[in-house]
């Protein structure tokens, strides 16, 4: 429990501190404007039918430099004037070599021809394997999922769900069945930084957490980083979930939509100025409430979300992007009094709202260098307004961030690439305001937690390079700080990674990362509620830190587009947030008194075998892990298992195109039960008035009981219309939890018919069929 307060302790000159950062930001902006005056080579790579190819590799022989095309098949590079010799390669296509003289800014299109001899044997993947690209780098513990992979997985309610797909990857443990919580490598649910186009998202779940807020239509992909963190990421201990929405240029209007059991969605992509200005708009809403209105019934709940993106390429060197996300869950219920003699009206209004706005400016600078500036605003708030008879309850909690991140990237000609930059986030947190009147005010008086503002900032630098033939390295440093309540916390966060090529297509990697977290979610250790509160570090609540070492053995099997990874990790966590025994956080404005800080450790072994192209795609993941906690104030200071310590966690995810236009998908999951603290005994205490006795429960030691292991099979079948049709459609039907097995969330005591009692482990979701219809044109 050493105090993490380095570099100066309490700083009273907040003004000068802010000014320094503003000056640095101005310098950064000026640097961004300066461009090198060397010729720029722009190009686009197409296949033989004119479709742009994403992630094609372009190697420049004279400069020993390799770059890849973006989602629109485009690439841009600044080179010294003179002879340029390049080759372009892409899986399933013949390598193209080309040589020319570069004198001024030039734009060239390249067309690749299919590799005929391969066509008989393999199905050409639409995209390069991002996972295989990772093999070439020093990165470990990083997983990529594409829109296609996310959409092919049968899930609860049939609504494609990014978070549910992430939960099937190694190292990620789920919380209560169906929830959007992620517990990564023994961490807590609030230790994951979820970014949507660069902006943090604080609430990742609709439907009280059972469906993720990310509209699958507009997703481009997701990168999940569980270890070996690059220095340009920080702020959370356990993982970075980098979600990006579509941005590839389009040449005509595209409309796609989906009608499912839970919600329906629609997306429109529209080029405004060809290859310059594009717009994407996607919306999603539950509709069962509207259906029930039609039959004069009511369901007092709905959610919606709206994503918008505008991209603009004003010049060959500049790319601008503005994204907007907004989502709400609304529960609004009113019951008229039935007894006219007494006004027993009940109304409940519960609204959860999230929104993010991001502006991105990417600019190609001098030789192989570019700058990326992201500015964002994000907000999460909820309000509860209840009335019952004369009782009124109003609860509000919110967090709003203004942030900016500038990243400078330079791939030098000497084989070393450099990334440097800074990030500043201003948090405004209003943790809990409770206003009551009437009878309920006797039980719950009006109160408010003090509003908090904090300034979180960091500077980072990272260099990547090669040494001899077999070694690659990456070294970075992130210097993070938080300023709140005249308290200044600083944490140096070193990041190191090494890669050694054992044999062709097999590499051994080792990495070390230190992470610091200055913002926490105050939540029950058992379950996250939409009413959980985000709370920054204070004078008494210190930053959480972690140190993680990862050792990985990775292999790619190029002919089969397979990626195999075996990783071991050890993670040590300090100043972990915990709660006093019996802490009651619900509608509690004095929650800081209930917080305690302690230590955690987690270690494990992870296996991933992933196949990304061909008729048969999917992955097998397995994690063997252990996660423990220690707080001086709990369990006599002894170490105990964390709530979601799950010893074994395995999944088989597969998608098989068995006939043209028909594909079959399946998910099988096996998870060891999580930890639980059941009631194991009881005793009586007479009431103070001696008018009876109270039964007092006795709990088992904290998290000492393992719930039953669980396994589940989900099946889905997809039928697509002919590809030549103008309006393409697909039906996706399936069953969640085919054999109706409960995934227990706890142990309850239930009465038997003869008056005796029994223990039970109930689950939430049983066999649940789903069907959805999608279309696009």
């Amino acid at each position: 429990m050493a105090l993490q307060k380095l570099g100066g302790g309490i700083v009273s000159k907040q003004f000068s501190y802010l000014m320094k950062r503003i000056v640095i930001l101005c310098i950064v902006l000026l640097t961004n404007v300066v461009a090198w005056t060397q010729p720029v080579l722009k190009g686009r790579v197409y296949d033989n039918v004119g479709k742009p190819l994403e992630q094609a590799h372009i190697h420049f022989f004279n400069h020993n430099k390799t770059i890849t095309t973006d989602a629109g098949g485009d690439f841009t590079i600044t080179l010294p004037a003179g002879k340029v010799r390049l080759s372009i390669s892409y899986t399933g296509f013949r390598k193209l070599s080309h040589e020319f003289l570069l004198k001024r800014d030039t734009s060239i299109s390249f067309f690749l021809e299919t590799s005929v001899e391969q066509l008989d044997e393999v199905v050409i993947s639409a995209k390069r394997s991002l996972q295989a690209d990772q093999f070439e780098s020093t990165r470990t513990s990083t997983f990529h999922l594409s829109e296609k992979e996310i959409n092919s997985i049968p899930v609860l309610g049939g609504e494609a769900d990014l978070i549910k797909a992430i939960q099937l990857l190694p190292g990620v443990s789920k919380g209560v069945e169906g929830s959007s919580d992620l517990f990564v490598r023994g961490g807590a649910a609030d230790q994951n930084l979820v970014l949507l186009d660069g902006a943090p998202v604080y609430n990742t779940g609709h439907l009280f957490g059972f469906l993720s807020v990310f509209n699958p239509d507009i997703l481009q992909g997701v990168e999940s980083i569980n270890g070996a963190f690059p220095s340009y990421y920080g702020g959370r201990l356990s993982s970075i979930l980098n979600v990006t929405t579509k941005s590839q240029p389009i040449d005509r209007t595209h409309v796609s939509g989906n009608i499912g059991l839970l919600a329906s969605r629609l997306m429109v992509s529209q080029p405004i100025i060809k290859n310059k200005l594009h717009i994407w708009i996607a919306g999603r809403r539950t509709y069962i409430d509207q259906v029930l209105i039609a039959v004069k019934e009511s369901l007092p709940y709905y959610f919606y979300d709206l994503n918008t993106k505008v991209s603009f390429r004003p010049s060959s060197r500049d790319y601008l992007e503005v994204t907007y996300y907004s989502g709400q869950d609304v529960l609004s219920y009113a019951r008229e009094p039935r007894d006219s003699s007494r006004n027993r009206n009940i109304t409940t209004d519960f609204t959860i709202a999230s929104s993010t706005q991001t502006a991105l400016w990417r600019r190609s600078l001098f030789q192989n260098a570019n700058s990326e500036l992201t500015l964002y605003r994000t907000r999460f708030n909820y309000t509860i307004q209840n009335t019952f008879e004369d009782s009124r309850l109003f609860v509000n909690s919110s967090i709003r961030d203004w942030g900016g991140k500038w990243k400078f990237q330079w791939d030098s000609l000497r084989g070393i690439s450099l990334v440097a930059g800074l990030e500043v986030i201003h948090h405004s947190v209003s943790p809990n305001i409770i206003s009551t009147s009437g009878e309920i005010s006797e039980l719950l008086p009006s109160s408010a937690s003090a509003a908090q503002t904090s300034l979180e900032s960091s500077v980072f630098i990272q260099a990547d390079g090669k040494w001899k033939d077999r070694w690659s390295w990456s070294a970075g440093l992130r210097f993070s700080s938080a300023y709140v309540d005249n308290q200044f916390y600083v944490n140096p966060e070193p990041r190191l990674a090494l890669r050694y090529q054992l044999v062709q297509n097999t590499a051994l990697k080792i990495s070390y990362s230190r992470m610091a977290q200055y913002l926490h979610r105050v939540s029950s250790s058992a379950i996250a509620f939409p009413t959980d509160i985000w709370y920054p570090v204070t004078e008494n609540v210190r930053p959480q830190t972690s140190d993680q070492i990862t050792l990985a053995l990775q292999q790619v099997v190029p002919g089969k587009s397979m990626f195999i990874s075996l990783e071991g990790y050890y993670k040590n966590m300090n100043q972990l947030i915990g709660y006093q025994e019996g802490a009651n956080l619900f509608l509690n404005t004095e929650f800081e008194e209930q917080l305690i800080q302690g230590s955690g450790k987690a270690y494990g072994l992870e296996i991933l075998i992933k196949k990304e192209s061909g008729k048969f795609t999917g992955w097998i993941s397995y994690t063997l892990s252990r996660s423990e906690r220690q707080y001086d104030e709990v369990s006599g200071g002894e170490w105990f298992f964390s709530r979601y310590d799950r010893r074994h966690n395995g999944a088989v995810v597969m998608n098989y195109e068995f006939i043209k236009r028909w594909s079959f998908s399946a998910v099988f999951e096996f998870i060891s039960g999580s930890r639980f603290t059941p009631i194991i005994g009881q005793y009586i205490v007479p009431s103070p008035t001696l008018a009876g006795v109270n039964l007092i429960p006795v709990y088992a030691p904290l998290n000492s009981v393992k719930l039953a292991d669980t396994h589940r099979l989900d099946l889905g079948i997809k039928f697509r219309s002919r590809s030549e049709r103008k309006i393409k459609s697909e039906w996706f039907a399936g069953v969640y939890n085919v054999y109706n097995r409960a995934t227990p969330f706890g142990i309850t005591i239930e009465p038997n018919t003869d008056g005796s009692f029994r223990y039970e482990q109930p689950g939430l979701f049983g066999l649940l069929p789903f069907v959805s219809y999608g279309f696009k044109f």
Partner: protein
Amino acid sequence: MKSSVIKILKRSVRNGFIMMCFGWMMSSCLPDPLPVNNLPTLEPKIVISSQIIPDQGLVVLLTRSIGALDAGDDSDPEELLQQIMINDALVTLHYQNNIDTLSSLGNGLYGGLTNEWTAGITYELRAEAEGLQNVNAFAQLKESVPFETVNARLFVNEYDSLVEVDYSLQDPEGENFYMVNVQQFSSTQELTSLLNPNVFTYLKDDRDFDGQLFQDQFRVFFREFSQGDTVAVFLSNVEKEYYQFWDLRNENRYGFSELASEPLNYPTNVNGGLGFFTLQVSDVRVFVLE
């Protein structure tokens, strides 16, 4: 006529189909619960409860703890007491080099001491029972603080019929913790339930009025009172640990907060056992609501 019948039939079929689908989906959401095996069991322990009853002296109730499945909120309290009471224990009180043995009064109760109780003295209670671990506990007799004034009256508004209690007390110097309890005896029956009785507990410490005359008012909520009901209002000056025990009970008394709160094993001052050895003396006033 025919078309309207068809319309009604169509609508009924459509509505029925939608509701059937919805109902099927919802019901299919509930898989059979899994059985529970190999839970740790609680080793039975001696549970101590005590109170000084004016004119009768100290009464100690000795019971044993039971398993989680041995009783529930609907259990018969008398049967439960028969099941857990300890009648063959040796219970002794140790104070200022004196040892007094408490006699068994039956039904797990021990008492029969007629000593002079002195505020500020620490008393030790020891209990030995066959097959159970010996236990002991310490308690200090807190200075008895009676009501200076107290009144309980019916408070009726558009929605509720509650009891409003006004009281005042003279707080002695030093740290004191007060527990005010309101027990309802309805005009039709004596007690609503012997198991988990609906006793209202109001807690107040003297941080803000140390050594002063203190006046206060509170309402007994989430209960319905009527004219003719009898309420007893108790005031006790209790030890800090016992006060905290009831404070925790108050915080966890509603189901919604139990779901969101962390597991809690309630504190005890009994070494090797459970419960509380306390020596408070209550001032009790009875009111008939008008």
